[in-house]
């Protein structure tokens, strides 16, 4: 038993949902109790998904236990296939259903459905969300991929992008542009946008691009063993990593010197320009999933000339990679999914910038340290409308802008250092281009502002109960209403009369 307050990863069945939701014409029947449907809102809210995830939950309740949960599961499978008409069916159990041992795979088999049924083993009490994505995609590939005639021209699959992945949608778009530059044909992108029929065609390609090891490594390895398909291991995030990735891909296809058009890349010059001098040696702490942390570490060191004070990842599966990297950087690696431990490490190290997930953004807020998000889990605000990849040349540009944004800029930093006692413009005031959380809502000052009209104590007390973000407006509206109606004193009743008056 382990106490957890916030978690970096959900349970493995949420990973399976990320794969199912990314794909088309695939349906997932999940044996799960009532309440587990909360997971739908991750997709419909954080990613603003415009369709329901293709998941049918059995939502069993206490009265079903011991009676007919197996029948319930069979009924759900049958109805889901009839209603949604998928090309293939995933079946699995969430944590509670795992305990009642109904065997979704066996039950679905017994139905003799006319489509492939792919059973998932998702050990909820040992593994987590990323394992769920990797394992589910692997099972789908294993069940559906088959021998195919290779395309005449060299072509690749992009494997790993998912629903709810950090910028996966945009990464695929950027990578497609780069492949086009390199004159490499794209066969299939999966899971994102793939259908079971396109999975059948994976072996038409000559090689695979393992875009995110967390959600594609098992499938890439299996395809290598069974179809002799090589795969790339460099993740093209950052300038140098993108170059390495292109080199690796060229090597696989046996071509020398094919290059991608870098005229879109601004990061290199932006980083060399004099304004960026102030980045030199900025102390950063990097935490997130291993792939993004490894990429960010290289960018931070080689392309921003930051000084890295610590790195870590929450997915234990890649602990070795991060430990190795930490050793090279002469820092300690923190492998943990306990956010309190991460917070403590950050508090001890006192970095000037955190590169992390949504969790570290919260830690940063608490500790007053700026943070840029580089990894899942992320908030709806880190799923932007605009094209904002992490991969490739445009990804590098986006990363430069994102990391620089929370920092105090060049000369401003010096000026802050020169006049430390300036009451308005000092080093606790924060960067001038960001709203200042400390000074933003000074409700006491707002409430005490001089006015012709007096407030009865009970009315002031009531005003203070109004949420701070509308309190100022409520006060002004009430005073305006009082003035216009000839009242010189504001009572509690008058406060609410003004509210009714200004109803929209």
């Amino acid at each position, binding site marked *: 038993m382990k106490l957890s307050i916030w978690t970096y990863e959900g349970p493995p069945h949420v990973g399976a949902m990320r794969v199912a939701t990314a794909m088309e014409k695939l349906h997932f029947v999940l044996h799960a109790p009532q*309440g587990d*449907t909360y997971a739908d809102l991750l997709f419909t809210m954080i990613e603003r998904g415009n369709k329901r995830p293709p998941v049918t939950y059995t939502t069993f309740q206490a009265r079903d236990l011991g009676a007919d949960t197996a029948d319930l599961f069979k009924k759900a499978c049958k109805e889901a296939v009839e209603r949604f008409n998928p090309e293939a069916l995933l079946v699995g159990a969430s944590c509670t259903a795992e305990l009642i041992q109904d065997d979704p795979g066996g039950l679905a088999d017994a139905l003799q459905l006319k489509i492939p049924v792919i059973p998932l083993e998702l050990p909820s009490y040992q593994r987590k969300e990323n394992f769920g994505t990797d394992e589910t995609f692997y099972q789908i590939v294993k069940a559906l991929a088959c021998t195919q005639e290779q395309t005449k021209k060299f072509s690749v699959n992009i494997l790993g992008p998912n629903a709810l992945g950090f910028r996966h949608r945009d990464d695929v778009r950027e990578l497609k542009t780069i492949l086009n530059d390199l004159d490499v044909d794209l066969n299939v992108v999966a899971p994102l946008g793939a259908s079971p029929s396109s999975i059948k065609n994976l072996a038409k390609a000559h090689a695979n691009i393992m875009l995110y090891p967390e959600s594609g490594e098992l499938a890439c390895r299996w395809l290598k063993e069974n179809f002799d398909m090589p795969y790339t291991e460099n993740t093209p995030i950052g300038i140098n990593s993108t170059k390495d990735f292109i080199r690796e891909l060229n090597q696989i296809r046996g071509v020398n010197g094919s290059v991608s058009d870098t005229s879109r890349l601004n990061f290199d010059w932006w980083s060399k320009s004099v304004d960026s001098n102030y980045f030199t040696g900025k102390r950063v702490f990097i935490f997130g999933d291993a792939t993004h942390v490894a990429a960010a570490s290289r960018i931070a060191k080689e392309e921003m000339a930051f000084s890295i004070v610590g790195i870590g990842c929450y997915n234990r599966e890649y602990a070795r990679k991060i430990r190795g990297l930490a050793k090279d950087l002469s820092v300690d690696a923190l492998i943990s999914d306990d956010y309190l431990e991460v917070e403590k490490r950050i508090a001890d190290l006192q970095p000037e910038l955190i590169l992390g997930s949504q969790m570290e953004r919260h830690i940063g807020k608490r500790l007053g340290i700026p943070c840029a998000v580089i990894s899942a889990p992320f908030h709806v605000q880190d799923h932007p409308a605009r094209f904002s990849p992490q991969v490739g040349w445009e990804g590098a540009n986006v990363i430069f802008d994102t990391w620089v944004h929370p920092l105090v800029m060049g000369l401003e930093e010096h000026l802050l250092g020169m006049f430390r006692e300036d009451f308005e413009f000092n080093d606790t005031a924060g960067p001038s281009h960001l709203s200042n959380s400390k000074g933003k809502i000074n409700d006491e000052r707002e409430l005490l502002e001089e006015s012709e009209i007096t407030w009865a104590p009970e009315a002031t007390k009531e005003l203070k109960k109004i949420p701070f973000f509308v309190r100022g407006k409520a006060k002004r509206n009430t005073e305006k209403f009082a003035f216009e109606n000839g009242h010189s004193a504001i009572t509690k009743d008058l406060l609410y009369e003004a509210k*009714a008056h200004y109803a929209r």
Partner: protein
Amino acid sequence: MNEHSQIKKMGGCSDLPILKERGQREVFCGLTGIIWLHRKIQDAFFLVVGSRTCAHLLQSAAGVMIFAEPRFGTAILEEKDLAGMADAHEELDREVANLLERRPDIKQLFLVGSCPSEVIKLDLSNAAERLSKVYFPQVRVLNFSGSGIETTFTQGEDACLASLVPSLEETDEENLVLVGSLPDIVEDQLVDLIAELGIKKITVLPGRKTATMPAIGKKSKFILVQPFLTDTTEALEKKGASRINAPFPFGEEGTTLWLRSIKDSYGVSEDKFELVTSAPRKRAQVGLKKLKASLQGKTIFFFPDSQLEIPLARFLSRECGMKLIEVGSPYINRSLVDKDLELIDEMPVISEGQDVDLQLDRCRESNPDITVCGLGLANPLEAEGLTTKWAIELVFTPIHGYEQAQDLAELFVRPLKRKEALLI
């Protein structure tokens, strides 16, 4: 009064058959209630004994992570707890010891059961008793179930409050207890109004602190402010307290009838009642009048969510002129919502439970002006062209009482206005 009795004679929808469905339910489990309960009871900690899914639900359901360290957490069961390699009770004792050492401000610890803890039959009442012996009087340890196999969304609060009842002090004195958690400002407003009627000794369950929980006895009366408190009602009645039955205090009419039930129960004069309620009633009417124009004649469809659906449907149909198509509720306890059902004149479909795919078919078919549904359904339905209102906002926003009547109506006006205003 006359108007009310007339309606009572007609019976409204109280005899309407309920469409009962069993299928996929797109609802939260009772653990979700912890999101507001842990803010409401300021010295309580909610320790869920469950799985990673429970922890993930709690942080996802809130939509935002709470900035301050929250007063809830999940003791996540691991393989070794299930395989019997570790004694789950010893593990729990250790986690509780760590927690209470780190949070000495905690006076009340709730051990909250989940689906997995119930399936493996982990006896949390036993654990609570054992831990209470260790930590009482510094900390009181209680337990309730918020599991999805036992509870739906707001039933978690019901289970929590019901678990508190046996621990409440006994009293021989008369008192009035408001039951159900409300935003503090709304709670104060309602308590003030009742006090102005001349009623003394008004307390609230749950109290904001462990020390301010109400006392209960045979002379206690209680009135619900939330419709989902079935088990709590039973627990209070078992202690000898008597319930004042009333429609729920939503809107001007609902709040008036709710207060009137208290007034009648205490024999307060009509004059006094008028004196106390006329000004806020008028304000609520003024506030609602402007919004009614936007809602009049519009159709509405409720997916089941919080059990607030029937009282809200009554408010929207009677005070805002909306037309009800379907009012879905996860669970309907007629004895608690009968006063609201009586007041609904038109005959919508009232459904209990859910088969979400069938209900979506009905919803699309009826093409309502507003669909009230959970966050998993809202964007997909918007993308299909329907206008939706997030049901969860109705639980997280001050909507009870006179001063919030216009805010409640405004919650339904906003999506309609937005649709009109957007020129894309």
